[in-house]
């Protein structure tokens, strides 16, 4: 770097403060950076020691904030199969009312809407395995008009997991 120095004559009488060139570069860079900011420096301030405790506060928040839960779909395929089951039972009951010709006391004495509502209200969407009609026994039907073969066929065609409906897990 000596080559870059201009000849300095002691005779000129000019002197520079001690160490002047030592930190010149850093002072100059600081000045240049400041001058670059034609609209001024950042006016926002941070509370003292703010960053010292930030890590601990983030960890506290991590411990206390709720973790992401498992996403449970509102309507699952299983749920739809149960609803199909309810609809099938309701349809059978409804048809038994319409076509029951022997005059015996049976399901026709029930309010169909009330039965449907009861079944739908009893359906626990969060826990479909607990649904009441899982335990419903098709053989318990007292209505002789119901063709069991046809009912099984209907359920087999319309329900994805008939085993659940028939309680054969």
């Amino acid at each position, binding site marked *: 770097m000596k080559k870059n120095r201009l000849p300095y004559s002691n005779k000129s009488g000019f002197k520079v403060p001690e160490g002047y060139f030592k930190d010149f570069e850093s002072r100059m860079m600081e000045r240049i950076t400041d001058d670059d900011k034609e609209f*001024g420096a950042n*006016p*926002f*301030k*941070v509370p003292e020691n703010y960053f010292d405790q*930030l*890590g601990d506060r983030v960890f506290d928040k*991590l411990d206390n*904030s709720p*973790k992401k839960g498992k996403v449970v779909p509102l309507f699952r395929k299983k749920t739809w199969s149960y609803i199909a089951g309810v609809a099938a039972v309701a349809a059978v009951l409804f048809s038994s009312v319409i076509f029951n010709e022997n005059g015996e006391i049976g399901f026709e004495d029930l309010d169909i809407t009330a039965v449907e509502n009861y079944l739908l209200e009893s359906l626990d969407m969060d826990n479909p395995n607990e649904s009441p009609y899982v335990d419903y026994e098709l053989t318990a039907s007292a209505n002789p008009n119901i063709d069991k073969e046809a009912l099984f066929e209907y359920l087999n065609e319309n329900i994805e997991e008939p085993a659940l409906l028939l309680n054969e897990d």
Partner: protein
Amino acid sequence: MNPSEENLVLRLQDPKSRNEAFRELLELYQERLYWQCRNIVKNHEDADDVLQNTFVKIFRNIDKFKGESQLFSWMYRIATNESITFLNNRAKKHHISSEELQQQIIDNLENDVYFEGDEIQLKLQKAIATLPEKQQQVFNMKYFQELKYKEISDILGTSEGALKASYHHATKKIEEFLKQT
């Protein structure tokens, strides 16, 4: 990613070393991310809230980070989104537009103990608030945080050329605003 960043990510993704690595990550990036949030939301308390939420999100989602971008850009994106979402939610809560909220925030700066700007700097903040959202982001990142165009490009997913043009337009609009007021 550079090797040290890659190593940090691997440790973050390993449950055994996750907490220790996360402390390192906090040390490394807390100030930079703080200023990203602060430049958007302006108020320190709000920036603190947003920053903590940002780090919680980073911690919870680090397994999803595939290293396709720089870790730094990925975290900046989260911080930016968190800050913008925060402002949008606040505007919605108060039934006002984003522009009206920005105006309120700038008006509050005069009484903010953590804002030590003079009249010109306050005017500058008012001028920034008049810019479109993207230009505000570019201006804040370039002017206050002194990020490189390459870095801003990675964060915002915009070409460097478009960013330069955006910054140029932003400074011109700010100059005009300052001259008029």
